[in-house]
């Protein structure tokens, strides 16, 4: 039995890997969930067909990152998995039900008659909305921490429902709309693109307000986080994070207003998410069950992590490679038409 725990810090590596997987999930499923949320408000059925076609080849791969997040947490940090899943029972089930609805909507919408297609349009919208909102709620409740006794969750079934988690739920919905609408600016043309620009500029302000609110609330809720961010010299090292974020907001606003750049708003939105994610991540690090268990407490055993590391080192670049290849195959603007 090989075991690298004496050579490298396995929990730290796996913490970074899982965090990366979750971030990739948030970005990738973020834009297609976002498109689902704004779907019914598009100006015409043809727009909706274009929107759907722009994500149809990718959604399945995007959602696989969520399975990797869940499976990875189970494999690498079983303690966190077995505490957090019961703690967030209700939002997780609601998220899964939402993902089922919107996932089948892709294929069913293609197969449905013109008369019944609206059912799957609605399923796509409400499924995406509930999945996005629940993910935000889970994020907020996770940051606030859960009640633990020994190796088990010991709180009540509604502990996750707090004002803060409701706010993060709405914040994630807005964030996904930003990703989805800037994706559409990149991948569609004409009316659909114009409309997406308007949606993006509208939601941009909300995203800014919610990011500010979360940034204010986090240090207020926890002294450790407050000290971490506002003591010298930390504050100088950390200052670039809010500054870059503000710069990216400016850039997105500029691009949307001047209607020229088509790729940059999406890339800058990714940047905004990255900054927010890094900000959250370094505030919570090294806690995995905030303020109860660190990544080193919750880790799986050395042999399991070592075996998976041997697998991940060649497989992850391979996965990223062929995922990139698929995005490359379907590059360019999507259409509602079927001729080529």
């Amino acid at each position, binding site marked *: 039995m090989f075991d690298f725990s004496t050579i490298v810090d396995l929990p730290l590596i796996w913490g970074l890997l899982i965090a990366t997987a979750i971030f990739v999930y948030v970005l990738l499923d973020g834009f297609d969930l976002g498109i689902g949320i704004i779907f019914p408000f598009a100006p015409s059925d043809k727009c909706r067909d274009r929107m759907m076609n722009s994500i149809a080849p990718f959604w399945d*791969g995007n959602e696989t990152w969520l399975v990797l997040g869940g499976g990875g947490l189970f494999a690498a940090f079983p303690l966190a998995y077995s505490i957090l899943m019961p703690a967030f029972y209700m939002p997780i089930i609601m998220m899964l039900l939402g993902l089922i609805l919107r996932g*089948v909507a892709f294929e069913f919408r293609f197969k449905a008659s013109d008369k019944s297609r609206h059912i799957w349009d609605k399923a796509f919208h409400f499924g995406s909305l509930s999945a996005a909102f629940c993910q935000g709620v889970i994020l907020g409740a996770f940051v606030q921490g859960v009640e633990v006794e020994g190796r088990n969750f010991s709180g009540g079934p509604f502990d996750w429902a707090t004002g803060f988690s409701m706010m993060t739920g709405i914040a994630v919905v807005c964030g996904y709309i930003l990703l989805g609408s800037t994706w559409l600016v990149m991948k569609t043309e004409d009316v659909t693109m114009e409309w997406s620009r308007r949606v993006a500029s509208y939601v941009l302000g909300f995203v800014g307000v919610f990011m500010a609110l979360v940034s204010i609330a986090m240090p207020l809720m926890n002294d450790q986080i407050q000290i971490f961010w506002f003591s010298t010299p930390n504050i100088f090292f950390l200052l670039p994070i809010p500054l870059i974020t503000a710069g990216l907001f400016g850039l997105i606003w500029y691009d949307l207003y001047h209607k020229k750049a088509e790729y940059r708003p999406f890339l800058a939105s990714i940047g905004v998410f990255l900054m927010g994610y890094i900000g959250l991540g370094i505030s919570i690090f090294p806690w995995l069950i905030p303020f109860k268990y660190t990544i080193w407490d919750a880790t799986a055993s050395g042999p399991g992590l070592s075996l998976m590391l041997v697998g991940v080192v060649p497989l992850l670049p391979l996965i990223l490679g062929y995922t990139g290849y698929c995005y490359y*195959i379907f590059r360019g603007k999507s259409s509602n038409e079927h001729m080529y």
Partner: protein
Amino acid sequence: MLDYLDPILLARIQFAFTISFHIIFPAFTIGLASFLAVTEWRWLATGKEVYRDIYKFWVKIFAVAFGMGVVSGVVMSYQFGTNWSIFSDKTANVLGPLLGFEVLTAFFLEASFLGIMLFGWGRVSPRMHFVSTCIVAVGTLISAFWILSANSWMQTPQGFEIMADGRLMPTNWLEVIFNPSFPYRFVHMVIAAYLTTAFVVGGVGAFYLWNKRHIPQARIMLGMAVIMAALVAPTQLFVGHMHGENTMHHQPAKVAAMEGNWEHTNNAPLYLFGWPDQKAEETKYGITIPGGASWVLTGDVNGEIPNLKSFAPENRPPVAWVFWSFRVMVGLGMLMILIGAVSAFQYFRRKLFESRWLHGWWMLMMPSGFVALLAGWFVTEIGRQPWTAYGVIRTAESVSPAILGPQVAWSLLAFVVMYTFVFGAGSYYILKLIGKGIPAANDKEQYYGHGIEASVIESTAPQGDKNV
């Protein structure tokens, strides 16, 4: 009534319900992906359009079934944690890497190349498209490899040690992955998936022959299905028998329940019918073949087979469930062998494509694979009870502590409602596609389209309404 709100029972029902719904789709898509790969290969090799028609027709059904498999599968990867957190905590060090490898080696592969398979026609070369189909087909098999390894480890755990706090630690990965029941279960399941698909494809072919539609395509569908049924169904009987012998050595209580055998006896009878009564500890109303069970399992009518009374009552599985599921599975398997043999016989008499009565049987047999597959899983999963990891962790000690009955109850209800709606609609759309038939042969330009009207399109191509 309140007794039924037992959280353990509810959690078990929820798991049984969601996994049973889930397994139908992967089983179907494992077979269908390989079938599509073969069809596309025949098309590229022969250039005959009839193969292209068949591919184009089944790939749409594949897309619906695959989508439903994906969304019902995401549920599974979280349900371990929500309802079975203690089991997860105890076994994660052993099972976690297996499930992790399933995602890394199979799920991403399938999901990524599925996009090219469905939407990539015209964007990649025919050769690359064929390669994508093959990758998806291989991906489904890799996925089956890992998940069956994990499941088999729960049936026949080995290669671990138990820590002071009750958690399991792996000691030998090869022993974990290639645990004793894994090779048998893997082969048995993959063949089951192929047979399930064969009877669906053959049934659809027979349906078109019956209605005198799409005759050239229908002959190929039925013909390929007959090859599978005639050769693979008997193989499955042999593999299933080997699997049964393996189970007798490693999980004797399960085999005792399958045979409904309570007493210590040489010369155990084979029950064709019977009603196992768990309380009275006997199998009532038996119609038996004397010495049959002994002969099947040991090759000797006086051989000794496992008996239920040698296990304490709290260590016995629910006998009637296992006993009857086993008979349903074997009965349908025998029927498949019979239909395969009769169809092959008719083929050599050059009457396969004209025998309407036989086409009727093939149509009736369309759901048989799914029923047999579920029955088989009922045998092996219920037969494992009362353990989650056989002999190591009890089911009652696996369930999440913080889960109260009401939480599991409402989520079970929500799953039942959602699955009925979503998968009812999915089955309806699949049947609608079958009813609609294969599009006319003059529509060649749109052939590989997949989407509202068809697929995502090249940006350089002329596009209809520029003002949309």
